[in-house]
């Protein structure tokens, strides 16, 4: 039952080096673009761009958009869109800020250790529920997601305003602020421990994948390819952590930290920041979402529905309930981003998350998520977010005028999608 023209496929040991390594050319392309961008900015800023300090700042600035972009991948792959993420971030941030600043201190007492816990849980819950509600309108009432979330964009932005009467709410709980980045890092030792765990995890995943293939008698990569790949992964993780550790806490700040504890700072002490907790959260979210996308039924159904909604339905997938779950997850991630964004700013401002919906969608799309549905990757969205943030910070550092910054970002967005279309055509995918 085959076209007799399509006869057996050639054996595996053909192809160039990259094919043997089974690396994703799209991934390489995006990383290449990011590297070129960074080197370019580094040149124009006389070496100020590629410093541990800027790298550190870049990562913590990217986290909030990147986390939401992970959720947006699922939404878009499922052939929907969410225009309300920035507004939802604002509402959940407002809820958490009101709890921390106005409500809980009155009940529990100022500085009570449970304040941040309750606030975060409440924020995540509110985000998830609002997301689920929007998903229900999309899935069960069959109102187009564009409309539901365009409405949500207006509603939640102004609910946030109403909750806080438009005022800036702060200062937020001290422990809560640790989610912001600079105020909460693992320190060098724990960062290296994390690196070690990450390396073990990554290598285990590689080895496990190979074993699963081999156990069914499928061809596997040659050992040298496996070793090369492992070496690249190890180098990347070590390089990443080493760079973050190399950014040291400024002497003045360090002195203050010691003063607060009533101690005197040892002479010549150098302390690295290490991995920010917010970046750690992003990494955990990304790994979890990538596993969900590739290795769970939920993820498989999202992609199947995006590829052919009718086929998914006929295969017994409850596509309506799936939509609710996807939007609920998106809402949860918006709330998580709200924790990080408001902690980074150390208060809740009325304009928090403004334009984030565009940044998040752009990050997903630059990362190769097709608006027609069915295609998109988590790592792509994160690299997309990094590219966007690098562009923005890089141009600011170079001193590009504000209007030109946005003109460039808009142009890059369109160009990136065009390149993606050309790429897809060239590899013969749809």
């Amino acid at each position, binding site marked *: *039952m085959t076209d007799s023209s399509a006869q057996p496929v050639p054996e595996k040991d053909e192809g160039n080096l990259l094919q043997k390594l089974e690396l994703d050319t799209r991934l390489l392309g995006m990383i290449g673009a990011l590297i070129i961008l960074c080197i370019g900015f580094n040149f124009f800023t006389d070496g100020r761009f590629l410093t541990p300090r800027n790298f550190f700042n870049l990562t913590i600035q990217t986290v909030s958009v990147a986390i939401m972009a992970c959720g947006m991948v699922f939404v878009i792959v499922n052939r929907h869109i969410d225009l309300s993420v920035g507004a939802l971030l604002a509402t959940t941030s407002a809820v958490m800020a009101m709890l921390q600043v106005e409500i809980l201190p009155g009940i529990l007492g100022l500085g009570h250790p449970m304040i941040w816990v309750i606030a975060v849980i409440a924020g995540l819950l509110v985000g998830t529920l609002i997301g689920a509600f929007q998903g229900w309108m999309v899935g069960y009432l069959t109102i187009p997601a564009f409309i539901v979330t365009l409405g949500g964009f207006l509603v939640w932005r102004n609910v946030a305003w109403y909750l806080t009467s438009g005022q800036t709410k702060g200062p937020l709980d001290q422990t809560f602020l640790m989610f912001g980045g600079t105020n909460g890092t693992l320190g060098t030792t724990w960062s290296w421990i994390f690196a070690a765990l990450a390396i073990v995890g990554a290598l285990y995943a590689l080895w496990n994948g190979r074993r699963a293939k081999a156990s069914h008698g499928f061809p596997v990569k040659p050992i040298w390819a496996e070793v090369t790949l492992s070496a690249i992964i190890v180098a990347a993780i070590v390089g990443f952590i080493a760079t973050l550790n190399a950014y040291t806490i400024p002497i003045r700040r360090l002195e203050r930290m010691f003063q607060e504890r009533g101690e005197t700072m040892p002479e010549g002490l150098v302390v690295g920041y290490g991995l920010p907790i917010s970046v750690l959260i992003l990494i955990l979210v990304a790994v979890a979402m990538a596993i969900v996308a590739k290795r769970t039924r939920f993820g498989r159904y999202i992609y199947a529905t995006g590829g052919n909604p009718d086929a998914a339905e006929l295969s017994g997938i409850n596509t309506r309930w799936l939509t609710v779950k996807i939007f609920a997850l998106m809402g949860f991630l918006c709330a998580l981003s709200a924790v990080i964004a408001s902690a980074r700013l150390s208060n809740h401002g009325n304009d928090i998350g403004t334009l984030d919906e565009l940044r998040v969608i752009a990050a997903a799309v630059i990362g190769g998520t097709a608006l027609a549905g069915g295609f998109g990757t988590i790592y792509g969205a994160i690299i997309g977010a990094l590219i966007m943030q690098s562009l923005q910070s890089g141009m600011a550092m170079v001193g590009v005028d504000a209007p030109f910054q946005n003109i460039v970002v808009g142009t890059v967005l369109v160009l990136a999608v065009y390149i993606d279309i050309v790429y897809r055509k060239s590899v013969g995918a749809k």
Partner: protein
Amino acid sequence: MPTAKEIRASGAAPLVEMKNISIAFGGIKAVDDVSVDLYPGEVVGLLGHNGAGKSTLIKVLSGAYQKDEGEIFINGQQVEITNPRDARANNIETIYQTLALADNLDADSNLFLGRELVTPLGLVDDAAMEAECRNIMGRLNPNFQKFNEPVSALSGGQRQSVAIARAVYFNARILIMDEPTAALGPHETQMVADLIQQLKAQGIGIFLIDHDVHSVMELCDRASVMKNGQLVGTVDIADVTDDDLLSMIILGKNPTEGAEG
């Protein structure tokens, strides 16, 4: 093992009985008071012009559409089939005319869509699914090799064989085939014919929609003919000629009035 005809004559409950099924789309009666039945080990052909309502009728059975009126019995028990999951739960498998494949996924993901194999941790086990997929494809279509490409990269016939594999893999008791050979070459069509004979011998009941009267004469035990949403009649293939069937399809007359039932 008794043949389908003997089972039918013995008065046993049919495997499937669709009674007085009606379904309308915005005022147009796509299926109008149609009754068909199917016995174990039997192939019943569904014939009719384009738009006669064949696909719509079987989609009621497969859970894709909800009937407006009528009843469905399986082994004599009345069942409610309101979605594709209900149909699968009743061991009804369907090869849709449109194939219903997710084009962006590969063959094994499509084969197991909605029924993925999972590891003990509950994660989708792609390697195991690919192995199973290679197994069944080895039986159905030994030339099939594109296991790791999205099915959008497959030829029409290859796609069709993925859809067929999906329907036969899960031990169906009732198989619905809506023009399963439409995209297939002559050799592959013959393989499907052989497959139908095999499945029939295993006691599976098959509804086969096919426009080719000759293959219906060859493969089916009975044929039900539809015209404009209504049932023209159901005949025993042994009692009719090609021309009889053709005139039923085109003129909507039943030449052997009373031969059935």
